[in-house]
């Protein structure tokens, strides 16, 4: 069972845990990525997230399907990323997985966030205390076919 989304609304960990639950699942793992106050030694006040909505959804869905292929078709899998300007401390992304036993939840949840970081068309513009702002250099997207 897959839920993916991109949203301008505040992310909701309880919605993630509610999706990632089943009477047959004894384990759920949830990851939250948040805006940090320092990056590369500069004081950050906020981060603006730009993303390609349709392609994001499509790639999120692929990543979730891969996780289920690897760790179980009965997994419940959740991947939601936020869009817009976020203050320090706000959640930019939540990934979550539930499964029968905990090993699958941990591994699949980690897979979601690692793949998302590499493959999702998402860009960050950091805003600094000195009023400056900068688009963060990322890594080139390759066609993974």
């Amino acid at each position: 069972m897959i839920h993916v989304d991109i949203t301008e609304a505040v992310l909701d960990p309880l919605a993630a845990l509610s999706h990632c639950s089943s009477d047959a699942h004894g384990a759920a793992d949830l990851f939250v990525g948040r805006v940090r106050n320092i990056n590369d030694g500069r004081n950050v006040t906020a981060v603006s997230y730009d993303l390609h909505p349709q392609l994001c959804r499509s790639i999120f869905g692929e990543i979730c399907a891969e996780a289920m292929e690897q760790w179980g078709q009965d997994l419940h899998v959740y991947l939601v990323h936020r869009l817009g300007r976020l203050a320090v401390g706000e959640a930019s992304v939540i990934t979550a997985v539930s499964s029968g036993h905990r090993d699958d939840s941990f591994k699949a949840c980690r897979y979601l966030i690692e793949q998302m970081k590499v493959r999702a068309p998402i860009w960050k513009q950091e805003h600094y205390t000195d009023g400056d702002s900068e688009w963060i250099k990322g890594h080139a997207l390759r066609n993974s076919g």
Partner: protein
Amino acid sequence: MNRSINVRLFGAFRQSHPESSLTVEIPEQGRVADLRQAMEAALESENARSLLKASAFATDTAVLDDQDPVPEQEVSILPPVCGG
């Protein structure tokens, strides 16, 4: 014969082009490599042209290779990513 195609801009490309899209001319049967060439000519700033080298083109469902044909409607240009 040429046709024009609309390219959606993301991330740092928006810095130099706040309108968030750019229309360029490519050969009727052009491939993504042709589109990349047309973009290089169209981009005004040195920064954007250098960003182009590390960027990928994509439809709404997939990232394209340089030898792929350019889709009919619209494509996006994706600078290096850093989600999360």
